């Protein structure tokens, strides 16, 4: 194990040299880089959507004649203009354009292409839709009642993953179980029950999404600000019923995603408009649309937790009931019930478990992956709950975690036996960085406190592919299907290839985010680009290496075993003057190519026999462990909370690109603090968003930022990614709000039970008697 510290702002410790600059950096700082909305095409038209006029209504008729008659309008399309197919991840429950019903305010009823954006929007408003208005059903908990009207009347006929346990408005029910939790709970020394509720929140990339579609013959190219170009390609092919070979998705620079640009979204809508008009069609979202229209937000969640402990801090039973708001459609979030349940268990030793999670339909905006989906809210609830448990047995909450965090050889919630894992090390590191001992000694003012929270997140082992090809001058090009969302993970791939080939990272160009070029890749989701595509690049580079060594052996009349690759040449070990440059070998015109995918690592065995609705996530592959500690100041008169100091200790395995990894933590922690304190999508009684803008949906600004200290616990994890790396991108948002919540509770004497913990909620919690509603 090794440890890397990152000096905090204002620290006098010299920084590590940062030798590797991201290849896309120059175009980004000069303003010359092109994002999708920066593209223009000769003859292009502009698209606008007509969204649902009610969150829940039956469509009686759609009349587009007035819209079509508006001068400057080239096309108005509805469900009648596209194949009648449904799409969706684990459940195919949505159409491109609403046909029988609208199920949320962002459902698309019609699309318009016109000469200008203004004309397109005016025409969209002229589409006449007759509805039979139905009651909105935004209450996702109430929707599972037996007498609640079923939102998707045809749910049983939908195509769906056979492992999902579905029933009407319950899109997925999952139970994780180990041992007899009921009996163990009955025998516990102390039992603590908690109830926490999290509002929905948003990814909020600073770039609103943009798309341009253009057809050439029977083929369409869609330039799209997507995190998942191959999923977008499949979506276009499926919904328009054309082969994937006729669909090319190209992603110009992507202005952030945080999950919200995962999944197939609007590529086919724009493609059909371009097809009908025989013109390039461009769609650029307004900020309001970016909030309201994507079927993608962080899910609201209702969390009941119950823990039975012995007086010396052994957790003998964990029970839980979680209800998640799926919203109107599944999208790619079908696995959320299972993932939420895993986070209600957390990286702790639990003798017995029974957590039941429901993923319910509602007439709200659909929820899908936002940075570590389900984890921040579940972790916020669990970590506050654990502090309540510690208080109930009179133990310091950190001590309870010391006794219960998993270590090598311990068992996960469904029998996974952990290999080397850095959970406890992250805890001690975060405590040291935040100065927990000083806090325990009472050295902080009485309006300040330190809160601690731990969390985890899996690596996702999936297939991925890359090619490496040498150029005639001894440089190389990586052709990859991976997608760069800004994190730098694709930009860091040359580091891996360069080491294998004895070249410099700056010798590599990268061809990426073009579905006609690179092999299939899952996209920038699941913190898995380095983990999986890195593995592919390594294998591709190894193939090139083998070819170079064989060619060098022939040229130098030496044995391959005596050769090495260094400084851009094949040379004899110990006699570097006997060498041939890669340029000489590659310059002959004979192609020197490598391809790779690598062997996908598998998670440890677990026992899901007692689980219901398993999707195979009971065992976390190469788990990433996190401890966050926050020092906060609470103004008891106003409820305003300020995070003053923050420590983030992470086991993400070996860190390949420290600039990039640090950046993920700084950004993830700030996102986490926003979700802890200010970020929520507020809705009216029918589920319509009340704050779809950056004035009222409050992100953290530079002025809000605390000092953030980072420590990397570099555990040599078995079954990890290249060089022993694990994921990095999602964990930094996982325990953040839990740490902040626990700190707030220590100041005001009570846990805030709603997320975000706004000033109003903190004040109410501080000023309502214990046992009464906050």
């Amino acid at each position, binding site marked *: 194990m090794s440890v890397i510290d990152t000096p905090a*702002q*204002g620290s006098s410790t010299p920084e590590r040299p*940062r030798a590797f*600059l*991201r290849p*896309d*950096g*120059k*175009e*980004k*700082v*000069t*303003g*010359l*880089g*092109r*994002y999708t*909305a*920066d593209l223009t095409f000769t003859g292009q038209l502009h698209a606008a959507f007509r969204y649902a006029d009610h969150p829940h209504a039956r469509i009686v008729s759609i009349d587009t004649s007035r819209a079509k008659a508006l001068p400057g309008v080239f096309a108005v399309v509805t469900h009648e203009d596209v194949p009648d197919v449904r799409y969706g991840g684990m459940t195919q429950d949505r159409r491109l354009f609403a046909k029988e019903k609208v199920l949320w305010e962002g459902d698309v009823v019609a699309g318009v292409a016109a000469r200008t954006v203004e004309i397109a929007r005016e025409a969209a408003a002229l589409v006449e839709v007759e509805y039979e208005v139905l009651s909105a059903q935004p209450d996702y908990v109430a929707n599972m009642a037996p007498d609640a009207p079923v939102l998707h009347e045809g749910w049983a006929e939908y195509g769906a993953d056979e492992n999902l346990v579905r029933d009407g408005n319950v899109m997925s029910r999952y139970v994780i179980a180990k041992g007899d939790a009921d009996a163990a709970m009955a025998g516990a020394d102390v039992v603590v029950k908690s109830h926490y509720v999290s509002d929905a929140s948003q990814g*909020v*990339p*600073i*770039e*609103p999404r943009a798309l341009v579609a253009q057809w050439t013959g029977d083929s369409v190219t869609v330039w799209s600000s997507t995190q998942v170009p191959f999923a977008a390609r499949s979506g276009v092919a499926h919904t328009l019923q054309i082969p994937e070979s006729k669909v090319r998705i190209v992603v110009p*620079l*992507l*202005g*952030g*995603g*945080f999950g919200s640009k995962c999944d197939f979204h609007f590529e086919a809508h724009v493609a059909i408009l371009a097809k009908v008009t025989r013109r390039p069609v461009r769609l*650029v979202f*307004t*900020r309001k649309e970016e909030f309201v229209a994507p079927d993608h937000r962080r899910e609201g969640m209702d969390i009941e937790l119950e823990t039975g402990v012995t007086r010396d801090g052994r957790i003998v039973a964990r029970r839980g009931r979680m209800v998640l708001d799926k919203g109107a459609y599944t999208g790619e979030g079908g696995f959320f019930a299972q993932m939420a349940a895993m986070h209600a268990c957390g990286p702790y030793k639990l003798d017995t478990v029974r957590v039941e999670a429901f993923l319910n339909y509602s007439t709200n905006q659909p929820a899908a992956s936002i940075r570590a989906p389900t984890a921040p809210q579940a972790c916020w609830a669990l970590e506050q709950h654990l502090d309540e448990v510690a208080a109930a047995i009179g133990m310091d909450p950190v001590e309870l975690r010391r006794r219960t965090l998993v270590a090598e050889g311990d068992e996960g919630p469904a029998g996974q036996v952990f290999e080397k894992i850095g959970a406890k090390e992250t805890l001690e590191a975060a405590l040291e960085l935040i100065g927990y001992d000083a806090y325990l000694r009472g050295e902080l003012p009485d309006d300040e406190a330190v809160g601690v929270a731990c969390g985890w997140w899996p690596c996702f082992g999936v297939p991925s592919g890359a090619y490496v090809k040498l150029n005639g001058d001894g440089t190389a090009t990586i052709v990859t299907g991976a997608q760069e*969302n*800004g*994190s*730098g993970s694709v930009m860091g791939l040359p580091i891996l290839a360069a080491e294998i080939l004895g070249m410099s990272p700056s010798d590599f160009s990268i061809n990426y985010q073009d579905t006609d070029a690179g092999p299939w890749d899952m996209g920038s989701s699941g913190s898995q680009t380095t983990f999986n595509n890195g593995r592919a690049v390594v294998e591709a580079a190894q193939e090139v290496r083998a070819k170079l060594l064989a060619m060098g052996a022939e040229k130098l009349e030496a044995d391959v075993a005596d050769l090495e690759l260094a400084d851009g040449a094949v040379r004899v070990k110990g006699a570097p003057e006997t060498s041939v440059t890669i340029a000489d070998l590659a310059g002959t015109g004979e192609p020197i190519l490598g391809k790779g995918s690598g062997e996908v690592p598998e998670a440890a065995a677990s026992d899901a026999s007692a689980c219901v609705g398993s999707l195979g996530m009971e065992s976390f592959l190469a788990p990433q462990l996190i401890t966050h500690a926050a020092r906060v100041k609470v103004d008891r008169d106003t409820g305003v909370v300020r995070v003053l100091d923050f420590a983030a200790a992470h086991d993400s395995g070996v860190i390949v690109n420290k*600039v*990039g990894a*640090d*950046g993920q*933590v*700084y*950004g*993830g*922690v*700030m*996102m986490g603090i926003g979700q802890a304190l200010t970020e929520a999508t507020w809705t009216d009684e029918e589920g319509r968003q009340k704050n779809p*803008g*950056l*004035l009222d949906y409050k*992100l953290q*600004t*530079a*002025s809000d*930022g605390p000092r*953030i200290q980072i420590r990397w616990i570099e555990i040599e994890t078995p079954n990890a990614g290249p060089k022993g790396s694990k994921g990095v991108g999602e964990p930094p948002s996982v325990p953040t709000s839990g740490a902040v919540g626990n700190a707030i509770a220590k100041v005001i004497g009570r846990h805030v039970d709603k997320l975000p913990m706004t000033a109003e909620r903190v004040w109410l919690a501080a000023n309502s008697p214990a046992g009464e509603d906050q």
Partner: protein
Amino acid sequence: MAVDITLSVNGVPYPLTVDPHASLLHTVRGDVGLTGSKEGCDDSECGACMMLVDGRPVNSCSYLAVQADGSDVTTVEGLSDGETLAPLQEAFLTRGGVQCGFCTPGMLVSATALLDRSPNPSEDEIRTAVSGNLCRCTGYDGIVKAIAAVAAERAAQG
């Protein structure tokens, strides 16, 4: 009714005919053809569209092109010649101040304006100066460090 104006953008005069309601942002991105400045909200909330108008930082999405008639406008493209990077541009890259890059142009413009008026800013001043520029990727850390580093280098050079 269209209006004839002249914008000087990054030192180049552009005689333009614009709608009276056209924003400076749309005019520069569309008519002038410089797309470095971004539209993130069209509501002065995100700062991705920040430009200097006669040296003063403005949210160009909420500033009319006709208001800038006769003014000197500086965009991110005007901060360097595109080959040799300005010290702030370089520092943003070396200090981890750039991830997705969408906020970067506006951030660089705000930072330039800060260092022009306050060559030796405190960390608080830096954070306040870019508090109108939202970044979702970096947590602002690399950005603040980059601006501080450039200020320190300038101070060291006298």
